[in-house]
Each structure stands twice: as C-alpha cells, then as structure tokens.
C-alpha cells in the first residue's frame, strides 16, 4: 500500500531527472518517456483511489459520535518517517519531529487522481506545441507533478508547506520560458505574489505548532505536552483545547460567587489568548491560501499567468494548482482554527467568494481573448469552492470539494481546447473566429459539451457541485440572512456563467464561417487521435460524475463529516457565548447591589 503510494511521488521525480539528463537533442524520447511515466502515475493513482473508494463503499455509514477523531483510513493509507527530529527524550527516542508523513484520505484521494489525469493531458497537449528545450519542459512539468501530489498527500504541516512552495519553482520556469510575449513579467508576478502569501502562511503554521504545547502546559503543568507537526494530531489537540478551555471557565463561573476569583481570571485570560492565537493563525494561513485560490483582491496574478502560460501550464495551473489554495483552507484552516473560521472566515471569505464569483463573471463577459475569458471564469468558479467551504456544513463542504474536481476537469478541458484552437490558427481573439463548428466538428462538439459541464447543465458534474454549494449556504445556521443573500448572489453568478460561456461558444462556433488568417500554419484539420485521447477521458469523467456521483460522495463523506462536526462544535461554542446565563462576576455585582 504505502510502497505504491511512495512510487507515486518517486516516479515524477525520477522522470524529471531522467528527462533532464536525456538532453535537448532527443525530443521524441523525452516525449515518450513522459507519456509512459504519466500513464504509469495515472494507473497507480487509479489503483489507489479505487482501492480506497471500494473500502469506503463497503462501509455502512456510522454516526460521527466523536467528531475530532478521523477515520482509521488515515493510518491505514499513510506512511510516516522522521525527517528532522526536533526533540529527543533522555533515552534517545525522537518524540517530536518534522515528519515525512504522507497518505490518502477522503479529502485528497480524488485530487491526487485528478492531478495524475491532467498530467497525461498536459503531456499529450505539449506533444507538438512545445518544440524548444523539450527535455527541460518535461523535467519541470514532472517536478510540478511531484509538488502538487506532495501537497495533497502531506499529513505533516511543514511537509505540506514545503511541497506547496516547491510548486512555485517549476511553474515559474514553465511560464517564463515557454510562455507568451509577456511571460517574464507574468512569471515573476506569479512567483512573488504566491511567495509573499505563503511565507506568512509558514509563520502561521509554525506559530500554531509551537503555541499548542505552551498553552497545554499552562493548562495542565503536570503533563509535558509534545511538539508535533502532524496534521491529524494537531487537529486533535486543537479540538481538545477548544473543548476544554471554555469548560474550565464555565466550571468556575457556575461555582459559588466567592470561589477563586484569581483562578477564574487566569482561565479567562488563557481562553482569550487561545482565541487570539487562533485568529492570528487563521489570518496568517489565509494570506497564502487566498493568494493561491485566488480570492478577489489578490487575484491579479492569475489572468496574466494563465494567458502567458503554455497550454500545459494553464491546464495544470487551473486544474490543480488553484485547488492547492482551497484544499489548504479545507485541510488546515477549518480544522485548525474552527472558531476563527466561523467568526472571520465565514463572513469575510464567504463575502469575498461571492464578490469573486460576480466580479470574475463580469470580467469574463468583457474579454475578447478566449484564454483570458477562461481564466476569469476560473476566478468565478473558485468562488463557488470558497463559498461552499465557508458554509461550514456537510453539504457545503462536499459541494466545495466536488466543485474543485469539476473545475479541474472542465476548466482543464477548456484550456486544452483553447490551446488546440490556438495551435491551429495562432490567435485567441474571439472576433477573429466565427462558425468554426462547420469547420472543426469534433472540436466544436467537445467545446459545447465542456461548456455545458462548466455552466452546470443538470446531468453533468457542474450542476451537482454548484447545487450543493448553494444549498449549503441555505442552512447556514446562525447567520441565516447573510447565507441567503450570499446564496442568491451566487445563483446570479451561475446565470452570468452561462451567459459568458455561451456567448463565447456562439461567437466562435456558430454563425457564418469566419476563419482567421492561417497561411503557413500547415493544413488545418479536425482533432487528431492524440487530441481525442487528451480530451476524451475528461469529458467521460464529467458525464460520469454527473450521473453516478455516489463513489465520490461515499469516499469523501467521513472526513467531511468530521470537518462539519468540528465546525458545528465551534458554532455551539459561539452560541453558548451569547447565552442568557450571566457570568458569575456580573451576578456577583447584582447581588452586591441588592444587598445595598
């Protein structure tokens, strides 16, 4: 099990080194090697995810009684080894360390599969598009795969961060060397934006891991709490503190009035400082992930990077890399700072998500460049992921996760199609095209199909995701009104999405034939076998997810339920705080005035 899994990380690394060493002369060999390696990765990922999903399908759903304990699969499908021991006990055993802790669970299983799938498409689409420095291109592509798979698979928070930043390096070169005319600027802007954000994320991550033992030891000086960077353990610790610290305060508040006021003050201060820590940790983590998603005020790197990137880069950027941000929120922010997620995250990020949905949609409407249109549609679609995620309930988070996969499939396919069109006519201006449906039949068929998936036609995958996200917003317990408003605005975004996508399809593929100037570009033909092989799996999956999503839901539901349980606990705590029972010192003051 773990051997197969490690191979999934080792294979891209080996391929990257091998294709770098093959030299720039042997382009064909490099291409075939890359295809073989990416197919092998896909096979591995398929085996792993099928095994995983099969195990989940057999399970009968159980009620999540203890919400903080994750299902056993986290242990069964994972492998860990010490990377950098930080503390050793007297007898020499390592008791806290940065670990190489990777594995599969419901949150990442489909994303890992998606990564492997899009890698195959990326290799295929670069077959003729990339003619210069072919070996370097594929080397960076596989380093990127290593980074992406690593982020999804990491169960150690520092390892997660390490892979998260590792993805910057290959993409910087992919955009910078093989990109469009403004590639240098785009590559550097992308790199610096993401680097700045993620460095702050690093601080948040490290601060959380370091603060937890401090607070634990303050609470209970008899125990010596361990420093840990493993995400499951951190989640359990955070959950325990979230439960215990308010209880400590309540215990004393309900005690007789003159019972240890000093202790009460101390406990209140501890609770307050823990809340502050959570808030800052959340904000710090948010910086990196929000840039990566991208949320609206910090999204400006994305359209530029997309437009300048080569097709394979765009596909992976849209299909996988943007999910690193939403995945980070799901994997780290929500379980590690649930109170802050509820208090700040839901209103702030939920609001920004809706702004992103609408703003991205309007920007997409205004574009003349097809690639830019798809790029802005990504901003809009990622808004749904964020909206569902910060609904902080089971439905919303499931929808968000599904929307991540959907967006990867449909936008990945859209970028592939745009790339194929561009390869034929060397223009991306929509005004240059018209009635291409009669010229390129298959391409048009795929484009229409993928567009339908992207705009959320019932029966295809996009519909389910969007529907879940929006319905998640309706039972947004606690903040009813805003939930409805956000859901309504999100639904407007769906309409806008249909508008700009269908406009694009009509402009390019329908109406009177208007072919761009294409002399010297060779014979323009319809999709060839390689291109069909690139697109077909994505299209089939779009349909499959739309009509039979059960394996998907079954596989993700245990973890999502745990996350929802954590969020619910945070909601209960927030509600308890506004409870009518007055704290003790207020009662004390009241009795004092009565006596007078």
């Amino acid at each position: 099990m773990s051997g197969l899994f490690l191979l999934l990380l080792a294979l891209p690394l080996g391929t990257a080194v091998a294709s770098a060493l093959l030299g720039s002369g042997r382009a064909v060999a490099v291409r075939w090697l890359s295809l073989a390696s990416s197919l092998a990765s896909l096979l591995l990922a398929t085996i792993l995810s099928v095994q995983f999903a099969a195990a989940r399908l057999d399970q009968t759903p159980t009620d999540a009684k203890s919400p903080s304990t994750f299902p056993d699969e986290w242990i069964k499908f994972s492998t860990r080894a010490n990377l950098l021991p930080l503390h050793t006990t007297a007898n020499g055993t390592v008791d806290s360390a940065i670990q190489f802790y990777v594995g599969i669970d419901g949150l990442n299983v489909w994303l890992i599969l998606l990564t492997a799938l899009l890698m195959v498409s990326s290799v295929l689409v670069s077959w003729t598009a990339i003619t210069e420095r072919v070996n370097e291109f594929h080397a960076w592509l596989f380093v990127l795969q290593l980074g992406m798979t690593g982020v999804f698979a990491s169960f150690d928070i520092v390892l997660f961060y390490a892979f998260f930043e590792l993805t910057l390096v290959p993409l910087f070169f992919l955009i910078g060397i093989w990109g469009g005319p403004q590639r240098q600027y785009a590559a550097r802007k992308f790199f610096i934006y993401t680097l700045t954000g993620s460095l702050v994320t690093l601080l948040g991550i490290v601060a959380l891991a370091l603060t937890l033992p401090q607070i634990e030891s303050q609470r209970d000086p008899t125990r010596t709490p361990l420093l840990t960077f493993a995400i499951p353990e951190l989640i359990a610790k955070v959950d325990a503190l979230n439960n215990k610290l308010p209880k400590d305060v309540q215990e004393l508040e309900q005690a007789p009035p003159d019972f240890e006021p000093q202790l009460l003050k101390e406990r209140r201060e501890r609770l307050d400082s823990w809340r502050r820590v959570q808030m800052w940790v959340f904000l710090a983590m948010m910086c990196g992930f929000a840039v990566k998603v991208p949320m609206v005020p910090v999204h400006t790197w994305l359209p530029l990077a997309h437009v300048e990137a080569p097709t394979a880069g765009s596909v992976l950027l849209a299909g996988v890399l943007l999910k690193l941000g939403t995945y980070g929120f799901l994997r780290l922010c929500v379980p590690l700072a649930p109170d802050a997620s509820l208090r700040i995250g839901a209103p702030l990020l939920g609001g920004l998500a809706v702004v992103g949905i609408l703003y991205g949609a309007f920007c997409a409407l205004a574009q003349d460049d097809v690639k830019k249109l798809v790029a802005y549609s990504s901003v809009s679609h990622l808004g749904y992921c964020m909206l569902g995620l910060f609904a902080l309930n089971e439905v919303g988070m499931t929808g968000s996760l599904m929307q991540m996969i959907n967006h990867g499939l449909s936008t990945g396919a859209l970028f592939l199609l745009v790339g194929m069109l561009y390869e034929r006519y060397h223009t991306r201006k929509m005004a240059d095209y018209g009635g291409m449906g009669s010229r390129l039949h298959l391409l048009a068929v795929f484009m229409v199909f993928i567009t339908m998936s992207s705009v959320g036609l019932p029966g295809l995958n996009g519909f389910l995701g969007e529907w879940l996200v929006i319905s998640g917003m309706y039972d947004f317990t606690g903040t009813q009104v805003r939930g409805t408003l956000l859901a309504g605005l999100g639904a407007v975004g769906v309409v806008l999405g249909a508008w700009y996508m269908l406009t694009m399809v009509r402009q390019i593929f329908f109406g009177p034939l208007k072919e761009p100037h294409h002399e010297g570009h060779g014979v323009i033909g319809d999709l060839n076998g390689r291109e069909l092989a690139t697109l077909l799996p994505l299209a089939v999956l779009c349909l499959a997810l739309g009509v039979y999503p059960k394996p998907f839901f079954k596989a993700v539901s245990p973890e999502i339920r745990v996350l929802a349980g954590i969020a619910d606990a945070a909601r209960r705590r927030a509600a308890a705080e506004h409870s009518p029972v007055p704290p003790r010192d207020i009662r004390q003051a009241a009795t004092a005035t009565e006596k007078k």
Partner: protein
Amino acid sequence: MNPNLVTALTGYLPYLVPEMLLGAAACVLFLGGTWRANRHLWGGVALVSLAMAALALSLNPLPHYQSASIADASRYASPVMLDRLALLLRAVSLAGGVLLVLLCWDSMPENRAAEYHACLLLMVAGMGLCAAANELVTLFLALELTSIPTYLVLYLGKSAAPDGGLDAAGQEAAMKYFLLSIFSSALTLFGFSYLYGMAGTTNLPGLADAFRRASDLTAASEPTLPSPLMGMGMVALVMVVAGLGFRLTAVPFHFYAPDVYQGTTTANAAVLAFVPKVAGFAALVRVLGFVLPNLSHEVFTATLSRPILREQLPILLWIIAAVTMTLGNLLGLLQDNLRRLLAYSSVAHAGYMLIGLAAAPRLLDAFDAPVDGVDAVFFYLVTYGAMTLGAFGVLQYLSSSGQKAETVDDLAGLSRTRPGLALVMVLFLFSLIGIPFTAGFMGKFLLFAGALDVPPSQEATFWPPDQRTLFVGLALLAALNAAIGGWYYLRIAAVMYLRDPSPLAVAADGKRSWPTLAAVCLCGALTLGIGVNPDPLKRAVQSAVPRLTDMVSVSAVER
C-alpha cells in the same frame, strides 16, 4: 604554583595544532612565493595544509581533563575554550577555507598566488581561534588575525590594470575596508576595556562569575541596582555590538560592504562575505555569554547582568536585525551590479541571523523550545556559507573563463550557454530566497521557529508591551523581507533562464577553472544536501551549543 593551573595554562597547546599548522604553512607560502610563481603549486600546498589541519583537528578534537578541578582551572585560566562549539566552528572554518582556496584559485595573478593563499590560511586560523577564544585579548587577537590578511587580500587580488596593480575602484575598496575595519576594532577594544574595568578580568567565564558574585552581593545588601555599573555595562554592550556589527555587515555598519564588494574581485568579495561573518558571530556569541558551560544561564539571570543581557540586548539586537534585513533587501532591489547585489544580500542575511541571537535570551522562558536561537544562528551560518560562496563561485568561474559577469544582464541566457552552471546558480538563488528542499529554507525555518517560540513576557518591562508580540512581529517582518529578497534573486534567475544569450557570451568560452568549479559543486551539494536532509547539521549544531534552557534544569539539579 597550583599544578592544576599549570596544566590549564599549558594543556591547551596540543589542541591548537591545526591553527599552528596553518600559521606555519602560511609562513612557508609567504617565503616560497619569492622563489616560484605557480598558482597550482601554492594552491595545492594550501589545500594540503588545510587537510593536515583537519586531520590534526580530527585526531585531537576535544580535551579530556583528568579531573574536574583541572577542567575548572582550565576554564578560568586557559585562553581558549575547547568546547564543542569551538570544534564545530573550527571544522566549519576549515571547510570554508577549502572552499575559498578552490574558489580563489584563478582569481589572482600568478606571482601573487602564494601570498594570497597564505592570507587565506591565516584567516582560517583566525576564524578558528575566534570560535575558541575564552578571553577578551585572545578574542581580539583572533579577530585581527582574520582582518589583517583581509587587507592584504584586497590588494593582492586585482589584476585588471595593465601593470597588475589596483584600479581606482579596487584601491578605494581596499582603503575603505582597511580604515573602517580599524575603526571597528577600536570600538570593540573600547567595549572590551569597559568589561575589563568592571570585572577586573579578561577571562570570559571569570567575567560571568564576577557579575554573578556582584549580583549576590548587591542582592544581599541593597535591592536596587547600582546604576553606574549598569551604565558601564550598557556602554560595553553597545560598543561590542557596534564593533562586531561591522564584521557582520549589520546596519548601520554596513556602508562599506556594497562599495568594497563591487570594487574588488569576485573572489575577494566571496572571502569578505564569509570570513568576517563567521568570526563576527563566533565572537559575539562568546562575548555576550551565550555559550559559557554551566554559566550562561546564571549570567542571563543574575541580578546585575540580567537587565542588560536579558532585557536590553534583545531589544538592541531586535532593532539591528529589523533594520539590517529591511534595508539590505530594499537596497538589493535597486542593484544592477552582481557583486553589489550580493553585498546587500549578505547584509540582509546578517539581519536574518541576528533574529536568532535576539530571540535567544528571551527563549530562556520558553517551554521546551525546539530551537535555541543560538543554534539556529550557526545552522544558518553554515547554510549561508554554502549558498553565498556557491553564488560567488559561479560568478568567479564565469569571469575566470573569460565571460563578463559584472551586471545582472551579463548573465542573460546562461541556461542556454552553460545549462549546468545555470542550474546550480538557480539552486543557490532559490536557497537564498528560502525555497523548500534547499538549505536556506531549513535555516529560515529554524530562525522563525526561534522567534515565534518567544513566550509572553512574565515581567513588565518599561518598553515594549509584550515580548511575544514583538518577536512575532520580527518574524513577520523577516517573512516579508524574504519575499522582497525573492524579487531580486528571482531577477537573476529570470535573466539566466528567460532571456536569450548575448552573442558575446556565446563567443567567450575560454579556459575552464576546474578548482572553482569543484568549489561550486561542493557548495551545491551542501545546499541541496542540507535542504533535503537537515538532520546531521541540526544535530551537530545542537550538540555544539550548550542550550540555555537545558542549563535551567542542570542548575536546578545542582542545587
């Protein structure tokens, strides 16, 4: 005379054989240079003597005292402290010496090779002694042993002018460094004199002991601190930090760095980026009492020295660190000359390292801190050495093979003309940025962890509000600085990979400097190796630095 004292006063000599060997080899080189001018011969001799010194060090690493009383006597009488930190830093300076000899191989005119390498050997010996110094006078002499050869090296390296002499920029660089270095030595000495005046001894553990005993006395007689002593202590602290700050290129003592780096040769700039930093940090850590076995904790908690070392020192270093990294990175953004850019980069990295020292006294209160501040500094120092020497090595290799490598634009399209070299350079640049799986990331991670682990202040200080907030702020500033730094390092990477080579660069493919290439490869292996598997270095550093926090428990047990 007490026989223990005799042992203490003489017993250390066998352990200084590596430094003596280096000194002797330097003499041979100085004399031999008059007899024959051959860079390969003298470079080889330098390498052999470094290897012999390393052998001597490995044969006789740590002293074994027969009894505790002898150990105690040596601590208070011996001019050198032969602890694990000294061992580590001597090993590091020997390794750095090998890298520098290889890197500088082809940088000087043939007839000056012997003198040049002799100077390098003396610097290595000086760094080693600095790391081992147990006494203010020894420390000062060791510092001078690193700086005086540096003045020579600055004159020896340049050969651009037809007569082999210095051009105007080179002369300016050498002169500027000379004058400012003398000035900083004077400042350091001034601070040392105050320390001597207060304690009546130049021995570092003795100094610490004097402070402790004075504290006991004052605590017994009167609760308030004698303010003149406090004032003297502050003067000493500021002067020592200022004097050593010059060697660390800490702002505001960094002014020489960009001019000197730009004015002199690439190889000399590499020397300047490495040697004074190692010596400076070793000296700072020794003088400020971070690494006194069994005494550090008491120094930091004694009534008399506590306000200075525990409360003022972190603030002072906090300010210097914040200003140093910010200014270094911001000015780095504006540079076009590669050496000048790397000069500002080395300023910025000094700032990062100072975070560790600033946080260290505050980490005394931390619960089970995973890093100690001081160990993070030395970890970073090693990684900094590897990546900076590597970057300079690439530039040196280019210029010695006839390609111009003065400005950023000169590197355009390097990935096309020399793909391997460009890849290694990118590795160094990404390590300098702090990208994961390179040494720079682990270094930054440990420094950040130290700063983020600073606990909230338990006692109310007059300024600032809370230590924790302060140091989290510093870590945040460092993170933002790393991002700013990312921009100019990335600019070099972008030029190498994203631009087409200029026709000049393609044409210039002269001889290859194999030794420099070897140095670059070694640095690259180190950068990648530490990044992927940081554990060995972390262990080495951790065992070398006596942990302040561990000493709490030790002293508690002793009582």
